[in-house]
């Protein structure tokens, strides 16, 4: 294969005219890899997702509205997306901070701290939920001090946010880190030597450069939070209209052997999630175009 790519690399550069599929590039195997990409995405993502919509289609429109847009379902969406958004925002701020510290500073035990960041990925989420609940319950290490102050974490929506912050921690850190490392301190020094203040450097040089990566991390944390079940179910208390998340409603429907009802709620969640991710993608494109200017 090395011989083939050498021959191609030696061939004249492609013309600038852009055609969607016939475009010639210096890289070989576009047809094969693109075909494989499509097939793989279909197999792993599209077919399961379309099964959701096909099963939902088993419901009439009025049934769909009755299940997926009931008062209870609406409040569950609100809880799910609200807490996921809050958790992603918290992770956006503190994840950025952690990434900054990890990239810009050297300190003993840095490797260990860096490994700690990834730990929430490795832990089964139900375990995280149980640990957090034990911590924040009325008789827990933290709960015993917080509850007298009137701060109830376990078995409230706040508990859900805490669980999702834990679950989503690595996303922002890991997506911002490489970009931040790429910028390198010399760009900051250049900005400063051109007369920018500390704040100006951060605001005008660093933040625009890492914004697309930051948005990616935020979006992934958000998406993860919306879909999270295992940890949330343990800490939420699951009170209808208060701390009941949409994935629990889906399980409830399955418990009634109502597959169509379950997929109806799932379809609504998918559509909302897709629109959110699309919006974030657009924001990203916009941020990227600005940072290039």
């Amino acid at each position, binding site marked *: 294969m090395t011989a083939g790519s050498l021959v191609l690399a030696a061939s004249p550069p492609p013309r600038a005219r852009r055609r969607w599929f016939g475009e010639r590039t210096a890289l070989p195997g576009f047809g094969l890899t693109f075909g494989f990409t499509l097939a793989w995405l279909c197999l792993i993502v599209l077919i399961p997702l379309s099964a959701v919509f096909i099963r939902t289609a088993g419901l009439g429109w009025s049934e769909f509205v*009755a*299940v997926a847009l*009931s*008062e*209870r379902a609406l409040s569950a969406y609100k809880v799910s997306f609200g807490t996921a958004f809050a958790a992603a925002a918290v992770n956006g701020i503190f994840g950025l901070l952690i990434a900054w510290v990890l990239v810009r500073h050297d300190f003993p035990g840095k490797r260990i701290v860096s490994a700690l960041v990834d730990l929430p990925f490795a832990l089964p989420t139900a375990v995280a939920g149980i640990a957090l*609940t*034990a911590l924040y*319950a*009325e*008789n*827990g290490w933290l709960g015993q001090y917080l509850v007298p102050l009137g701060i109830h974490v*376990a*078995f409230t929506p706040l508990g859900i946010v805490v669980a999702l912050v834990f679950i989503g921690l690595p996303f922002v850190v890991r997506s911002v880190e490489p970009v931040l490392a790429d910028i390198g301190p010399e760009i900051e020094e250049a900005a400063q030597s051109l007369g920018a203040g500390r704040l100006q450097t951060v605001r005008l040089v660093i933040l625009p450069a890492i914004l697309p990566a930051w948005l990616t991390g935020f979006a992934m944390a958000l998406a993860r939070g919306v879909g999270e079940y295992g940890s949330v*179910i*343990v800490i939420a*208390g*699951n*009170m*209808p*209209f208060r701390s009941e998340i949409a994935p*629990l409603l889906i*399980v*409830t*429907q*399955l*418990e*009634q*052997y*109502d597959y169509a*009802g379950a997929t109806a709620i799932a379809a609504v969640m998918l559509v909302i999630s897709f629109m959110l991710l699309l919006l974030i993608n657009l924001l990203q494109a916009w941020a990227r175009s600005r940072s290039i200017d």
Partner: protein
Amino acid sequence: MRVATICLALLAALPSLGCSGGKSSGEVELLNVSYDPTRELYRDVNAAFAKQWLAKTGQTIRFNMSHGGSGKQSRAILDGLDADVATLALAYDIDSISRRRPEILPAGWQARLPSNSSPYTSTIVFLVRKGNPKRIRDWGDLARPGVKVITPNPKTSGGARWNFLAAWGHGLRSGGSEAAARDFVTRLYRNVPVLDTGARGSTTTFAERGIGDVLIAWENEAFLAQRELGAGKFEMVTPSLSILAEPPVALLEGNAKRRGTVQLAEAYLRFLYTPEAQELIARHYYRPRDPAVAARHAATFPKVAMLQIDKDFGGWGAAQKKYFDDGGIFDSIYSGNRRR
């Protein structure tokens, strides 16, 4: 090429992984799909049955047990889990197998074995904290303001449905009307601060997190919680009225025929009714059916008036629809609570 060789080797290994070692003629396999709290019970029952079967036929049995939420297990069987027998928490969950896939389990399954196909029963009791500080004696006390009640969500937990129905039965008997019963369960569920998704979750919330004054639990779970989670920390209170919980067992004929295990599975389920198995059942705090065994353990299981699902609630199908399906009475408690 080396990569290709490794790939080929992996491919060749796949099928053998799938069936995990061929069966020798002297070994048979049995998959029992059960619900959560029966783990310890079936460990003992399986060992006893395997010994008996080996003596009788010379075959060793390899048991595969699957435990999980009752509804989840039933869905797994519906979706094609090759179970020989199902031993679940509610007749409703086995019924839905027979309703949707009669080729696996023909209708009328519950009449095929003695005592409604339920070799053991249980009932609902209260677990309170040591010394019973809130003086909880009966159902009425659970609806008192200031009492915190822990019970799982009946929409996701089979056990919680028994709890709800027992409470409803009390409301109906003491109040004399459906409206009174509805009012009683509404007041009771307003005292519930956490709705866990399963019975074990509720036990943990009550016993380990220290939340609530009373846990409505299966009798066997209450015994287990007392033994495992701290002797002397809790007390059991038997209410004046409870409900007869009959966790049924069934031979999944379609699967067993295909796997050639019909005889074995049938003998296995029949074994549950023998004095030997009944004794094990009683030791695991399920109420045995065998009168002699029951008499031996009479001190453990107090006598209590019990509602019956078929007689008092018109069977699981009707009860599920009226109380627990979407828009049922349980849902209306919460939409009513919310407006307050």
